[in-house]
């Protein structure tokens, strides 16, 4: 029961707005000690698991090229381009990206989007520029536009990828059920991911459309 104190540390730490790296290390130490492990064993486990998850950092390899393209004016160019497209609104730009991200994810191509390589240099500046065509953006609204652009990436990839048969989560389900004596095919599982995929698109696209209307109403007032 005492291992739950690890969760307590996380909740408390985030609530007090302490540095998350500090909170996570503290939570790991508390949970490990509460479970009866020695301090050096917990530190070693933390180090081992951190190193075992280094593959997450591969995404950072795109930082230098994105930095250079920003220096070269890619965000400015993205803005100019979208300003010329008459039909482009912030909501439409993001709904289109949501659709593309979700469709490519259903084909297993989850590495095609992402916050560093697509949202920051292209999608967010385009959405901002489209919103600015009608009226200038104040800081709070600009933040909202960017946050929605990031959300389109997340919702698209989360609720697209499970429709693909060979994605990690489908294989995890298959393996787990097999351990418990239930044999299923990945295809059965991915078919049952389709209703949720459609509902996710309907819900988030509607919210982006409503956000677009609020942006438009702002211009009138």
């Amino acid at each position, binding site marked *: 029961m005492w291992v*739950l104190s690890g969760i307590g540390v*996380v909740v408390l730490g*985030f609530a007090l707005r302490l*540095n*998350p*790296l*500090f909170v*996570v*290390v503290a939570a790991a130490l508390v949970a*490990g000690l509460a479970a009866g492990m020695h301090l050096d064993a917990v530190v070693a*486990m*933390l*180090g*081992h*698991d*951190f*190193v*075992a*998850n*280094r*593959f997450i950092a591969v*995404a*950072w*390899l*795109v*930082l*230098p*090229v994105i*930095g250079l*393209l920003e*220096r*070269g*004016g*890619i965000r400015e*160019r993205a803005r100019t*381009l979208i300003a010329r497209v008459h039909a482009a609104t912030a909501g439409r730009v993001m709904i289109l990206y949501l659709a593309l991200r979700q469709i490519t994810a259903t084909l297993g191509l989850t590495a095609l989007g992402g916050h560093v*390589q697509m949202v920051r240099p292209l999608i967010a500046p385009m959405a901002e520029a489209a919103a600015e065509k009608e009226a200038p953006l104040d*800081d709070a609204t600009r*933040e*909202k536009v*960017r*946050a929605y*652009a*990031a*959300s389109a990436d*997340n919702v698209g990839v*989360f609720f697209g990828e*499970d429709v693909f048969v060979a994605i990690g989560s489908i294989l*995890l*389900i298959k393996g*787990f059920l097999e351990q*418990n004596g*239930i044999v*299923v095919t990945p295809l*059965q*599982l991915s078919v049952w991911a389709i209703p*949720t995929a459609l*509902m*996710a698109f309907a*819900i988030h696209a509607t919210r982006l459309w409503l956000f677009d209307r609020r942006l438009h109403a702002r211009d009138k007032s």
Partner: protein
Amino acid sequence: MIGLGALYGLIGTMFAAFALGHVLARSWRSAAFWGCFAVTMLGGSYLSDTANGLLVIAMAVLATMGLKPKPAPTADAKMREASAKRLGNALFLPALAIPAITLAGTFLLPHSGFVDPKQVTLVALALAAIVALALAMPMVRAGPGTTVNEGRRLVDSIGWAAVLPQLLAALGGVFAAAGMGKVVSEIAATAIPMTLPVVAVVTYTIGMAVFTGIMGNAFAAFPVMTAGIGLPLIVGKFGGDPVIMSAVGMLSGFCGTLTTPMAANFNIVPAAILDLKDPNGVIKVQIPTAVLLLIANTVLMALFVYHR
């Protein structure tokens, strides 16, 4: 064979260059922080687990003290406008080369014999980043120094958040080893009276979302909730379909992922990447979608899981 080892060497070298940039700029804490990260990348496989653990703790301490990076030199707005005019749509070429090459690599590399077949996507992404860089450097007339500076500028704007996803994955490992999952599923199973089939469904989908929120990862929550509630009650006691339960259950977990700072690489890191003042800005716009979709998932499962 190109596998993860080569990629870690590449990433480690890049972060070592960022650290060197900070040394030259005399921002010592940032230099030490990215230096530690570079060491775990380059030497992680050779160092002892304890040494790696101490490096992680050192990074946490430095982040808590505040990294205070000195800004990397870059182009001002006027230069960027002029450059955007000069280069026009050619600027998009390297950016779009990243997904194009990743895609091509994912299909072509498995049969080449040069690449570890299990790591094809990651190797393809690294290759795409290198090719895109080779296209971009002559285009914007940048040498290696400028390239490192521009990369450092971005990594500084992300800051310690760049390390958080990896650290949270490690926390998940420690939580699992400490027996967290068993305790949580026992509490959920004893606290709620499971006499009706629909109550089991609601407990399972909401439990998946909440426990995913705590762990930051639906993959960690799925075995716990499914072994604790899904299999014994929905499938065992009430005769539900395990396929529908698992597929929709996992996606209910993903709803939880949209709402939690623990899923740092989807929620906290993007807020940093997009220079948001509010670190929870992305989470806030995602919560309504997450709640509506969780309700929709629960209804979906309640309607179909018990009809074969």
